[in-house]
């Protein structure tokens, strides 16, 4: 069975590589028209040395559309030039070169107009005069993958064909014994290799972050020698002020949201557990709605609510939004504890003269706290990780959590370098936690 998987996946890699290969690189040459249009509305946005073109490309449907649309963004928005940085370059003759990746055989956009901001901050207008021939991108790596996958598939196929034939020559008893042997605890190195390869791919971007947290280069991927400076900056608060406040707000919001949703969710779970079947079904459905809804829907619907109510958006709205999507998970982690516990103990406590509050504290809580704790931790991680909901409910008052901070940072074209050590530390803490939990579990099992 595993062989079939391996072959399927090798074929998949082959197809993907071949398909990726068809993504060719095209270069458009944009020549000056001679007619220079100087706009004076935006006189002093960029320093004189820096040249930026504020052209944003929108391609809605890469596969089907024949022509590209330029959307000229005349306002020099701080974030937009960064999109251009890697896409536009200048030729030696001073022409603008715009590189796009498309699946198409030809690109028609002669006569398109492009605005360029010159060294003095004024805008010049250009017209596309020529499109150069298609150039192959650095496609060799895909060919390598495709070749390797093909060779692998062929080798595996031969092995199976040969192996099968050999098996058929055996007597039925021997075949049976062979099968039994295979059913046993034989280790399958091929399939383990698959898992490790998958993990390698999954961890490679993360490893990139971790490795480059030990150099002080501003750009990820540019090694400028070993340095612990970023760690020092992070801990001494010398990092970007925006990052510091983002970390603080992320923690504050996560704590508030987790505490509120744990309290609300535990009470709700107790209530739901004691409901009659029909009521219970309705409330459980209600409970599952925020879990089914994707981030963007939860975010937008809450955004519309706050707009309709005229609430100003900020810390409070973000906290409410986080409680909304965290609580269902708390409810779900407390409910199983309830069904394990003896339902009569609470009533017994009441009969013995405890007030409901006392009974809750002294009878229910000791039984429920593992579920509450896991709900609390789940709520914390969900809240820290959230981007979609926060993005729509944070308002425009400058409140940023880590996620939205990274987003606006990435749009400006580069990550704040101190994010690298921060997430390396988070990863390490998680890894150590995982190992400790695992060791403990093993010990418990041994007992």
């Amino acid at each position, binding site marked *: 069975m595993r062989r079939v998987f391996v072959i399927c996946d090798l074929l998949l890699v082959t197809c993907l590589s071949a398909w990726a290969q068809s993504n060719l690189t095209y270069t458009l040459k944009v020549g000056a028209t001679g007619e220079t249009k100087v706009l004076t509305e935006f006189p002093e946005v960029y320093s004189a040395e820096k040249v930026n073109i504020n052209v944003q490309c929108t391609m809605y449907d890469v596969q089907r559309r024949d022509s590209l649309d330029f959307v000229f963004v005349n306002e020099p928005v701080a974030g937009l030039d960064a*999109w251009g940085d890697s896409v536009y370059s200048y030729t030696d003759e001073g022409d603008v070169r715009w590189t796009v990746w498309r699946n198409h055989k030809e690109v028609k956009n002669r006569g398109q107009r492009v605005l360029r901001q010159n060294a003095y901050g004024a805008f010049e207008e250009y017209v596309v005069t020529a499109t150069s021939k298609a150039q192959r991108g650095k496609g060799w790596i895909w060919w390598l993958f495709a070749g390797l996958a093909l060779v692998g598939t062929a080798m595996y196929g031969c092995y199976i064909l040969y192996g099968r034939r050999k098996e058929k020559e055996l007597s039925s008893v021997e075949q049976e014994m062979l099968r039994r042997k295979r059913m046993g605890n034989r280790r399958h190195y091929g399939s383990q290799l698959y898992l490790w390869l998958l993990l390698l791919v999954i961890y490679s971007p993360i490893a990139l972050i971790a490795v480059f947290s030990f150099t002080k280069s501003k750009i990820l991927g540019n090694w400028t020698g070993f340095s612990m400076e970023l760690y020092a900056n992070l801990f001494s608060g010398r990092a970007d002020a925006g990052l510091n406040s983002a970390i603080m707000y992320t923690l504050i919001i996560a704590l508030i949201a987790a505490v509120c949703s744990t309290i609300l969710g535990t009470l709700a779970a107790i209530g739901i557990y004691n409901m009659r079947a029909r009521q219970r079904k309705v409330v459980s459905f209600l409970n599952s*709605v925020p879990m089914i809804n994707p981030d963007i829907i939860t975010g937008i619907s809450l955004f519309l609510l706050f707009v*309709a109510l005229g609430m100003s958006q900020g810390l409070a709205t973000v906290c409410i939004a986080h409680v909304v999507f965290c609580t269902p998970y708390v409810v779900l982690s407390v409910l199983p504890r309830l069904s394990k516990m003896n339902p009569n103990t609470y009533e017994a406590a009441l009969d013995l003269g405890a007030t409901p509050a006392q009974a809750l504290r002294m009878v229910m809580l000791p039984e429920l706290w593992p579920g509450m704790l896991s709900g609390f931790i789940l709520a914390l991680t969900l809240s820290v990780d959230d981007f979609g909901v926060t993005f729509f409910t944070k308002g425009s008052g400058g409140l940023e959590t880590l996620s939205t901070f990274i987003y606006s940072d*990435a749009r400006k074209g580069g990550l704040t370098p101190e994010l690298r050590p921060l997430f390396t530390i988070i990863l390490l803490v998680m890894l150590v936690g995982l190992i400790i939990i695992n060791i403990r579990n093993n010990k418990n099992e041994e007992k």
Partner: protein
Amino acid sequence: MSKLVQIFSSRRTWAWPYVLFMLLFVVLPLILVGYYALTDINGAFTLHNFAKFFGHSEAIHTFFYSLMIALFNTALCLLIGYPAAYIMAMEDFKTPKVMAMLFILPMWINCLLRTVATVELFNILGLPLGEGALLFGLCYDYLPFMIYPIYNTLQKMDTSLVEAAQDLGANRWQSFWKVIVPLSMPGVYSGIVMVFMPTVSTFAIAELLTHNNIKLFGSLIQDYITTTDLLNYGAVLSLVLLVIIGVTSFFGDNDAKEEGGGLV
């Protein structure tokens, strides 16, 4: 006073605050999406926004394009994730939990940061940032959502059923397709739902992965909803997405809810 005590000791009422909270912050907002979709900027009833959507070829294109990307990504995750889950569940690892956790651990790193790192990785390798990068990034981000539910169901599966099938003469191929696959279907369904729904509504990830060259439906909604004048049109787009989500969760409902496959 005694009545009050009675109300409090009836534990059913303890869920009331939560129910109220949910009505106010989950149900009402969803109704508001519909309300905004059906009104113009002054709050008067109109169907103009819907008419605009059906005449708006860019939005329609983007919608079907995102749907296609989401379907493709789900298929890709299933193709890569099922074997991984199968191997993890069947192989006698000394520490199966560690293996499973290793696949989930990256999710604790902020997903946007991982996306940016993926972009940098593509840059370093000299690969173009187009559809390929988009699919790689999406698959990379949502793969754990596919692996984990399938792994869960496969692990809970009664292996003696497989042995019984083999004793009754089924070969490995037959016992896989007729026993293991049907038994793992609940996990597959919930994996599909858990990958498809976030992919179809993704917005920031696609933007970062393609340097804003490929626009998905989520980004389109984001553009409109954050523009005050076009908020009502944005609500129409959200409603369209909501319908897709509703349909998907309806199909996935039967099995996905029970098995759940929650990530922690």
